[in-house]
């Protein structure tokens, strides 16, 4: 590791539940330092009581997302130099989710909405039957493939202004997952999915502002998936199926 040439002043949200405040820490600044490195340094060397969440450190597990200078980021893959303009670095818990302590949010509302959106597999065959052949070039499969690399980090959920204003809104991640399953030949719950995403918190609440697609660290496009659900539900309604 390089010798530190200077320190960087970092503001970190500290507190439990809805109450808290930003506290500042001086952290050694290194080249190629990620935001998660900064948070880990504080917890390891300055204040071990700092709570935050991470696991893989390589952008696979989706557990380290936080608000960095007001924008949702996967902190393990976010270089400080790319986001800390003029040396300002402010790290807060993810938006739109209740805070447990410091930088750790309660992800329950986020995952509960996956279930509400029927973004769960509805099996179409038993283990005794032949495996279904799924061709990668199939048009439906391509639509599903476009969204399956979601790592459940909730960056899109934190970026969504509709979630901020409408607590019932299922959000981009759950709706995108519902869309991938709707296009999955092995899923037997197409009608169930369409019904689940047509309620008061469903896909029709999306204003297509595109925050989800802009901030998705895996460069997925949940807004397009939601548009697909809007189209599919509209067609189903016109056919009298919804």
């Amino acid at each position, binding site marked *: 590791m390089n010798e530190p040439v200077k320190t960087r002043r970092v503001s970190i949200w500290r507190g439990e539940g809805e109450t808290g405040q930003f506290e500042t820490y001086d952290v050694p600044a290194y080249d190629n330092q990620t935001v998660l490195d900064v948070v880990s340094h504080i917890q390891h060397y300055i204040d071990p009581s700092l709570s935050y969440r991470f696991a893989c450190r390589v952008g696979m597990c989706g557990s380290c997302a936080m608000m960095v200078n007001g924008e949702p980021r996967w902190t393990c893959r976010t270089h400080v130099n790319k986001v800390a303009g003029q040396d300002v670095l402010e790290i807060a818990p993810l938006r739109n989710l209740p805070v447990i302590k410091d930088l750790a949010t309660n992800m329950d509302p986020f995952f509960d909405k996956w279930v509400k959106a029927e973004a769960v597999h509805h099996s179409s065959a038993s283990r005794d039957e032949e495996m279904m052949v799924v061709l990668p070039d199939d048009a439906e499969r391509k639509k599903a493939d476009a969204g399956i690399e979601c790592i459940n980090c909730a960056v899109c959920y934190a970026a969504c202004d509709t979630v901020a204003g409408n607590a019932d809104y299922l959000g981009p991640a759950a709706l995108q997952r519902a869309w991938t399953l709707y296009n999955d030949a092995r899923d037997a719950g197409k009608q169930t999915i369409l019904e689940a995403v047509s*309620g*008061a918190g*469903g896909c029709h*609440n999306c204003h297509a502002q595109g925050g989800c697609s802009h901030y998705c660290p895996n460069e997925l496009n949940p807004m397009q998936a939601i548009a697909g659900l809007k189209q599919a*539900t509209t067609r189903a309604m016109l056919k009298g199926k919804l």
Partner: protein
Amino acid sequence: MLTLRLYMLQRITALLMAPLVLGHIGVMIYAVQGGLSAAEILGRTQGSVFWFSFYGLFVLAVSVHAAIGLRTILHEVTGLSGRLLMFFTWGTALGLSVLGMRAILAVTFLTRGVS
């Protein structure tokens, strides 16, 4: 707060309004450029089933469309929901319908105050 039904109603009314807005703008340009007086305009609209239907449909589409849009804004800004939100939606739709239909009737089938 938008269900599929409300979403569809808002889209269908938007589809209806697009040609009606163009027609309305066209009528305004024609009336202003041609220098039509109020009496001349009323002379064309009084007793006209066409203009009653044209603007009647317009008013109904606006009432439904605006009520759903305002409902969404109110819910997202203030968090209002449930019955109060339903009353607001219906109140807006009915209020706009009454105001609009009153104006349309005044220039098509009611003659009071027109010389």
